[in-house]
């Protein structure tokens, strides 16, 4: 262990790195470039959202939410996320479990398929649903016969959102579960635990931070999704508009204060997501640091 201790006492490498030491201006140039870029493309737009939203004062800002259409959009967004996120939690966990713990034909194909929603443009995803469930689509006549509305209605929005946000949970879990292997589950089974007990007591606690991280990202995307939802929604005010679609309508009507006020909700959601994500990452890192901590001296 002497080697490890010696290594730890060494100063951080970047402080003494020859490039940094000899040419401090390179460091400053890189830092200012990065900061400048971030300011221009991230902080200024974020500030603009709130400035525009508050341009006519706090009262006008809050009045924007008093509109029934805005409230309906917020409600629809929450409903969509409330359906899509739990479903994708279950689907993602099941897919990750299957891929990480079992060997079967077509495993690699399944991994590729899980990435499909990332590879396909959201607009195309939405169009696929129109093609399937629309009046002229494959299932359209049958749905019309039974008086079921999918496209230009809430079910279509939920379906499109589920499709677009499917990979988040699975992609977080697969590498972690593959790395952890299935020895702990085998140990639990040998000790007499049944499948449920093994899942709740061994598998789930081992992946909880990654799962939470995936859920946070999935939720952010479910609430913020524009493209796919836009295609299937039909933009019926007060009925099939989610927050992003409502923002677009308000903006197109030159109702800037209301548009930015509603948009600020999404901005706040983004900031909360970032905060939650950092918190989860920090927690997860603390736990991995625990497991990587050098072991106590051999007994």
């Amino acid at each position: 262990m002497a080697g490890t201790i010696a290594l730890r006492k060494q100063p951080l490498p970047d402080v003494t790195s020859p490039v940094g030491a000899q040419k401090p201006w390179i460091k400053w140039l890189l830092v200012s470039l990065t900061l400048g870029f971030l300011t221009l493309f991230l902080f200024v737009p974020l500030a603009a959202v709130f400035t525009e939203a508050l341009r006519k004062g706090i009262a006008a800002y809050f009045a924007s939410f008093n509109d029934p259409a805005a409230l309906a959009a917020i409600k629809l967004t929450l409903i969509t996320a409330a359906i899509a996120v739990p479903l994708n939690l279950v689907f993602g966990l099941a897919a990750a479990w299957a891929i990480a713990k079992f060997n079967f034909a077509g495993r690699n194909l399944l991994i590729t398929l899980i990435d499909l929603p990332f590879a396909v443009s959201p607009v195309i995803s939405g169009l696929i649903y129109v093609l399937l469930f629309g009046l002229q689509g494959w299932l359209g006549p049958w749905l019309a016969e039974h008086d079921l509305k999918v496209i230009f209605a809430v079910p279509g929005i939920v379906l499109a959102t589920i499709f677009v946000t499917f990979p988040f949970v699975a992609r977080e879990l697969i590498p972690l579960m593959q790395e952890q292997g299935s020895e702990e589950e085998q140990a639990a089974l040998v000790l007499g635990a049944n499948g449920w007990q093994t899942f709740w007591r061994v598998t789930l606690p081992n992946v909880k931070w990654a799962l939470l991280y995936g859920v946070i990202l999935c939720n952010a995307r479910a609430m913020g999704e524009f493209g796919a939802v836009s295609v299937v929604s039909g933009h019926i005010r007060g009925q099939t508009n989610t927050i992003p679609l409502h923002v677009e309508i308000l903006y197109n009507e030159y109702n800037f204060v209301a548009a930015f006020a509603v948009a600020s909700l999404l901005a706040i959601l983004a900031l909360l997501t970032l905060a939650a994500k950092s918190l989860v990452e920090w927690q997860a890192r603390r736990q991995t640091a625990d497991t990587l901590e050098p072991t106590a001296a051999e007994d």
Partner: protein
Amino acid sequence: MSIEVRSISKTFGSFTALHDICLTVPNGELVALLGPSGCGKTTLLRIIAGLEQPDPGSGQILFHDEDVVDRSVGERQVGFVFQHYALFRHMTVFDNVAFGLQVKPRRERRSKGEIRDRVMELLRLIQLESQASRFPSQLSGGQRQRVALARALATEPKVLLLDEPFGALDAKVRMELRRWLRRLHDEIHVTSVFVTHDQEEALEVADQVVVMNQGRVEQVGTPTEVYDHPANPFVYSFLGNVNLFHGRIDVGHAHFDSIRVDLPPVRPALDRTVVGYVRPHDIEVSRTCSSDEEIEAVVSHIHGAGGMPRLELERLDNHERVEAELTRDRFRELALQVGERVFIRPKSMRVFVEGQPLDYQI
């Protein structure tokens, strides 16, 4: 509880991991499955545990004369210790050990207090009482392995199976832990099978050693039996270092260059090539030639450290390498230098003709 394996085979695709294995583990014994990596020993252990299934219709696994092949791993009531411990990383030492007791169906489950007492009793047994609330990551390798053992013993299994239990530990801890395991077994007498590739470990710890190679059992016996009476060249060479002497069979004798050995009454066919196997500690080294049955060699390396100093020698007649081990006294007395000429003579040799032992020793 005794374990009996009856003609079990296992294939993975086109690879045959186990060929028709038959094996009996008597009640209360500690048996080692010994063999090189890939010989099928771990697969056999996992089949006994129920973590792998044997080829369909290939045979039976009997626990106390009862076929358990169709029983799931949880129903077999075995304790299994994994090579890399497989401790539950998010649970404390206490919760790890308590796991098997806590997951029992409600009507069989003991009360919280009883579980607590049982766990603390086991932690005392493994001398880790003070570490009950720590996490596996905070323990050393040896401590983790002991926790894994306590966890396996908590449910009072009828059979204890250990997969390379000390494989991931450093030499000193491994030695301490295997002696501790032996003492523990003498106390609790649970029928145990452990897998190892370390012949020293198997010979020191086990009541019976099962030597395996390429999916087959080569020999079963007590440590002394397999070491002193190896059934074939594989067992001989796997159980320790070995020097080979190539020779020919003549009437009543085998000739290894200048060395002539008498053969037992069983007469193998004449003019066959034979191989004589000699352990390094059975090579006698001297400065002077005392008989014409000695071979001249040059010292090419000296490893003086350790309880048995080793010499690497090169024969002058055919330039083959020979390894010899001396006692410290003899080593000091000879005071050899690299490059010196010496005379060597095998004190004991085991002769195999085409893989079959000729029960003969010089």
